[in-house]
């Protein structure tokens, strides 16, 4: 048996460093009490195990093509053992630096510096068994976990996918237990809740059932059977069923807030809000290729217009209602897009990004300053913005506002779809590909760019106006750079230039963190890492637009071949 020691060591260390990192920044300890299954598997432990599983997966991947699987398994197990090394180092670091200082008078306390190097972490890593038993246990656990990781790569396809499914479903239900509870509660499923969960964590028995169920569904390929039956159907029936499906989908979309309860509806509202913003930013970045990092400026403008025009507080300047102010907000947004777009007409790429970022900050700083405070409230913001009313019915619940953002999103999506293949849309894309060539083809760059900024800004202002009406009061600090980055991340993760992509991106990046409130502290860390990982491995996003995929993947040859194929046809 010949083993590739370098691969083993490298991947093992990589996995171990990941686990070390996650423990050192506190993810392990913060969630050590947040149990997923029973009282023995916690989210914190999950973060620690990521390292060993990763080591197993990477090693198995690297050695996948070897003649017999046994060597790959052995290598993966060994790399699992290696991956426990950084964690053992961490344990000793904490022992030596922190635990020894606990009852002593010292000038410098290491714990003050590394705030998450805690005795609790050591206890967790050694399974509460003390060092002598705990460390061998840790190594053993890492080996087992690496074996699971390797199995997820090396098993034959059917059990492999089934196993993956089973893990994902079990963990997801454990992680989203609160939300599952809320939904079940809406249907009066008290008995089911009591069976599934104990506190926030899954009942062990329920966990096993979910695991087995998900495994079975994937193993017996239920969806394949459905697909087969679908393919056998005559065309007319397919069409009818599809229509039924779409109608059911729309009904589901409309009933969603009433099925999920108040809290989830608020999350859905935020998702819808970011869909609106994302679609707007998609025009600027995705279609026209202008990287705008100051997008929040228009969001803020929309919100402030709504606030100023409808507020019943001392700052309100008129008594217009929501529906009359909305078009005004959009209109002012459109104008603001042109005004802020003008100075940056001649800038490209990185410069454009930084300057627009500057604009966003300037607007926020101005809104916070005392200078403008007499007119727009300064740091105290604008209060008493009424909720919109619909035929005399006040929309104050998040469920009702959900319909508003759905309507807004549909409207914006409609406009975007119509624009995409219009003359203007094609001009935008031509400009994105190459400004100079586009100009040579007779495209008026000034007009095209300003329209892109303006349309994007208008949509953002609309989202801002809805946001202000929902919250009832607005403060300048809600309009910081994070909003711009959020919107940008939404369209990038979903896939630049793609409308379904915006929805998916918004669900992942806005919906998930709203649901996983517990992770608030680490939300932006995950954002950052997600952005990097996306760019490294899948720059075109989850649901990419075809042209963007080619461009971001750099598949120039494929492009040429496509051209050839079409011209020959």
């Amino acid at each position, binding site marked *: 048996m010949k083993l590739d020691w370098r691969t083993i060591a490298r991947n093992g260390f990589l996995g171990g460093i990941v686990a070390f990192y996650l423990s050192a920044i506190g993810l392990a300890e913060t969630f050590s009490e947040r149990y997923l299954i029973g009282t023995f598997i916690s989210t914190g432990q999950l973060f620690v195990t990521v390292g060993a599983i990763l080591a197993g997966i990477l090693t198995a991947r690297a050695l996948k093509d070897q003649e017999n699987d046994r060597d790959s398994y052995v290598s993966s197990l060994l790399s699992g053992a290696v991956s426990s090394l950084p964690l053992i180092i961490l344990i000793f670091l904490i022992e030596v630096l922190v635990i020894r200082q606990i009852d002593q008078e010292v000038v410098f306390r290491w714990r003050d510096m590394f705030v998450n190097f805690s005795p609790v972490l050591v206890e967790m890593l050694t399974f509460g068994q003390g060092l002598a038993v705990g460390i061998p246990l840790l190594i053993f656990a890492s080996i087992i976990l690496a074996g699971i990781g390797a199995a997820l790569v090396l098993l034959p396809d059917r059990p492999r996918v089934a196993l993956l499914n089973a893990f994902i479903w079990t963990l997801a239900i454990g992680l989203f237990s609160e939300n599952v509870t809320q939904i079940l509660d809406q249907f009066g499923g008290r008995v089911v809740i009591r069976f599934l969960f104990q506190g926030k964590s899954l009942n062990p028995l329920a966990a096993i059932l979910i695991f087995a169920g998900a495994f079975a569904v994937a193993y017996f390929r239920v969806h394949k059977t459905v697909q087969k039956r679908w393919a056998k159907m005559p065309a007319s029936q397919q069409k009818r069923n599809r229509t039924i499906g779409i109608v059911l989908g729309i009904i589901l979309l409309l009933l969603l807030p009433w099925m999920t309860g108040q809290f989830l509806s608020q999350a859905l509202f935020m998702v819808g809000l970011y869909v609106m913003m994302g679609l707007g930013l998609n025009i600027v970045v995705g279609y026209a290729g202008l990287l705008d990092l100051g997008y929040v400026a228009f969001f803020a403008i929309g919100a402030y217009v709504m606030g100023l025009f409808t507020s019943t507080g001392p700052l309100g300047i008129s008594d217009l209602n929501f529906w009359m102010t909305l078009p005004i907000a959009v209109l002012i947004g459109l104008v603001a897009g042109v005004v802020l777009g003008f100075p940056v007409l001649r800038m490209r790429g990185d410069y454009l990004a930084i300057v627009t970022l500057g604009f966003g900050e300037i607007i926020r700083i101005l809104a916070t300053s005392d200078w403008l405070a007499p007119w727009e409230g300064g740091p105290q913001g604008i209060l008493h913005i009424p909720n919109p009313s619909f035929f005399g019915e006040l929309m104050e619940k998040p469920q009702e506002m959900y319909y508003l953002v759905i309507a807004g999103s549909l409207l914006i999506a409609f406009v975007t779809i119509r624009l995409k293949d219009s003359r203007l849309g094609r001009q935008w894309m031509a400009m994105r590909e190459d400004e100079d060539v586009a100009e040579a083809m007779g495209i008026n760059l*000034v007009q095209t760019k300003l329209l892109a900024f303006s349309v994007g800004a208008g949509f953002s202002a609309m989202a801002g106006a809805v946001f202000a009406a929902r919250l009832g009061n607005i403060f300048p600090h809600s309009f910081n750079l994070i909003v711009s980055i959020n919107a940008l991340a939404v369209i990038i993760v979903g896939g630049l230039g793609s409308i379904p992509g915006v929805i998916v991106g918004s669900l992942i990046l806005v919906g998930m963190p709203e649901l996983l409130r517990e992770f608030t502290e680490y939300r932006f860390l995950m954002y950052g890492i997600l952005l990097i990982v996306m760019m490294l491995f899948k720059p075109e996003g989850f649901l990419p637009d075809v042209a963007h995929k080619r461009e971001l993947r750099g598949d120039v040859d494929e492009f040429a071949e496509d051209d050839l194929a079409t011209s020959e046809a």
Partner: protein
Amino acid sequence: MLKRYFENISWVDIFLRVFQIAAITVIVVGIYNTVDAAKYTSAQWATLVFAGLAQGSVYALIALGYTLVYGILLMINFAHGEVYMAGAFTAVFLAQYLSNIGFLDSNPFLGVIALILLAATVSTLVAVLLERIAYRPLRGAPRLVPLITAIGASFALQYTFRGLYGAEFRAYPTVEALRGLVNVFGFEVPLVQLVVLGAAFVLMFVLWLFVERTKMGKAMRAVSEDKDTARLMGIDIDRVIVTTFAIGGALAGAAGVFNGLFRPQGVYFFMGFFPGLKAFTAAVLGGIGNLPGAMIGGLLLGVIESLFPNLILEGLGIPSANQLRDAFAFTMLVLILIFRPQGIFGEKLAEKKA
């Protein structure tokens, strides 16, 4: 002749020209009013200038990192402000320790050197890791991709250090030996500001020597001139790029310590963001890709930022002008990019930066 000239200018040019004139008018009116009102004495102005110079030298050191990387990769390392934060945030713990045992007061020189060394080491490490993990795999990708990666890296670094060192503010101790005022041209100036200024100049001089006099510096210049030709000449591009990031990181780390020495506000995980942006502004101001430009741009920006809120905004009758200080720096950036995108010393980069 004149007719043809008028045919060639578009209404965008006209608008930008009007915008320029308006901006200059605002500045001139503001300055005139302030000077006319004689609200501040010359000693007060001098205080502002020196504070601005000290702050500016911090910007300059960070800006050098931007400019070095831009010169070689034509890429804005958006996460550079976080590199600066990493050094400053780590060294604050050593500073507190040294202060507690009295070393910083008995041996201020050695103490500060130790702080700078630690901060520079950590920042260098972060910068090199950043290059290795986030940027190197993306070399040759479309320009949007590394920029987004950099934004992601910026967030990831901020919250990594938040997780590692906690979310509180931590203040650098005051160094006894650096307290007090010195008389410069008849003005009383805090010693610490002069020391920071001087130390920054020393570092910049060392950098200049490195770039101009060593083999590695020569390789860096060659790579920034033409990557492919440099490769053909047997230069290891990857090594040059890593070295560039490392130097930028070291300077940023040192800047972090200087910042801590004269600003009592304390450091925390988000401290790098705005200085990073402002240092970028400084680099653009001086002409990005140009080393002396970054230094002078940084100093200039520091002075502008410290002087102009009082000088211009108060003259225009805007209350609490210092609240708008940050907005001012960004406005500067916009104005420079409109008026003179190549910066004070920059060559025409209009084609390159596309």
